[in-house]
């Protein structure tokens, strides 16, 4: 359907486009200034790096990136999950479409290659996502990578044409919020125990991080897959809107 999208400006103003010459010169000047600054100034001192290295044994994980994401700067990740949820809320239709979360449909055409690919790859993707989630504590990996893999598996499933995932069902909506809900629940509980928002006790930090990451993985996967499905099947949401 994207082939016949035509959203170019055809309004009353005769030449609405920016002048290529002026824009090009301005951007070239900006590029010149930025590269000059890169070459002549120390833009990054890495003071915080020592702070992270010194406190890594308090964080509950041994991978510094995971420690920054989910312990030292957990606020960022909390707000990031909220932003992701807001994007999904903006895209999903407001009322439920009465169907189970996974529905087998009568495929108009059998896409044999994609179906075979999905059957072979999906179990491997699930396994690998679980491994990435677990490995995030000590190696590169974690909730984001695992969530993207799971989202890819969902997209592959809907690409086969023989299944339809209903992202407005109550189960899918619960999966969408479970990451943020777990994060907020942990934060609120820690006010009671530690007196501070997101100040993990050192002994339980690893467990708390794993719990939050598991929830975040599920939420990120569902959110990315639902955003993608809204693009792929606008007719699905059309149908959705007219449903009683």
């Amino acid at each position, binding site marked *: 359907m994207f082939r016949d999208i035509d959203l170019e400006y055809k309004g009353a103003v005769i030449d609405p*486009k920016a002048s290529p010459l002026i824009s090009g010169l301005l951007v070239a000047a900006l590029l010149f200034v930025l590269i000059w600054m890169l070459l002549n100034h120390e*833009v990054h001192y890495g003071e*915080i790096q020592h702070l992270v290295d010194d406190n890594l044994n308090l964080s509950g994980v041994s991978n510094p990136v995971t420690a*920054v994401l989910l312990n030292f700067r957990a606020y960022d990740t909390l707000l990031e999950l909220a932003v992701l949820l807001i994007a999904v809320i903006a895209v999903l239709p407001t009322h439920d479409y009465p169907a189970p979360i996974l529905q087998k449909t009568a495929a108009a055409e059998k896409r044999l290659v994609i179906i075979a690919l999905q059957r072979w790859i999906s179990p491997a993707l699930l396994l690998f996502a679980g491994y990435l989630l677990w490995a995030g504590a000590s190696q590169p990996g974690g909730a984001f990578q695992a*969530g993207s893999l799971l989202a890819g598996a969902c997209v592959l499933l809907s690409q086969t044409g023989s299944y339809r995932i209903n992202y407005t069902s109550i189960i899918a909506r619960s999966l969408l919020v479970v990451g943020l809900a777990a994060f907020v629940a942990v934060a609120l509980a820690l006010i009671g125990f530690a007196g501070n928002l997101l100040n993990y006790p050192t002994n339980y930090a690893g467990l708390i991080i794993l719990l939050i990451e598991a929830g975040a993985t599920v939420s*990120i996967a569902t959110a990315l897959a639902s955003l993608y499905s809204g693009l792929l099947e606008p007719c699905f949401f059309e149908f959705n809107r007219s449903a009683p």
Partner: protein
Amino acid sequence: MSSALLYSITGVGLFAIGLLGVVLASHIIRKVLALNVMGVGIFMLLIALAKQNAFTIDPLPQAMVLTGIVIAAAGTALALNLMVRLYEIEKTQQDKL
């Protein structure tokens, strides 16, 4: 010239290309794609700056980029969804005329 500096300059160059695309492109898909190129340039700059010397890597920019990639993907999907909705509205208005 170290490889980190080369990657930084490439990131800045990608940012400039994306900026030019956002300003000059008239089609919405091209604008969204150009915004993504800008974002990729910034991510590349941050990742390149995270590598100060051969042995240590600053985890803070890496965590920021990891967060940013997911947000950028969600933002792009939101923009494209809005574009499809705009297209539907335009189409119904043209049909009415």
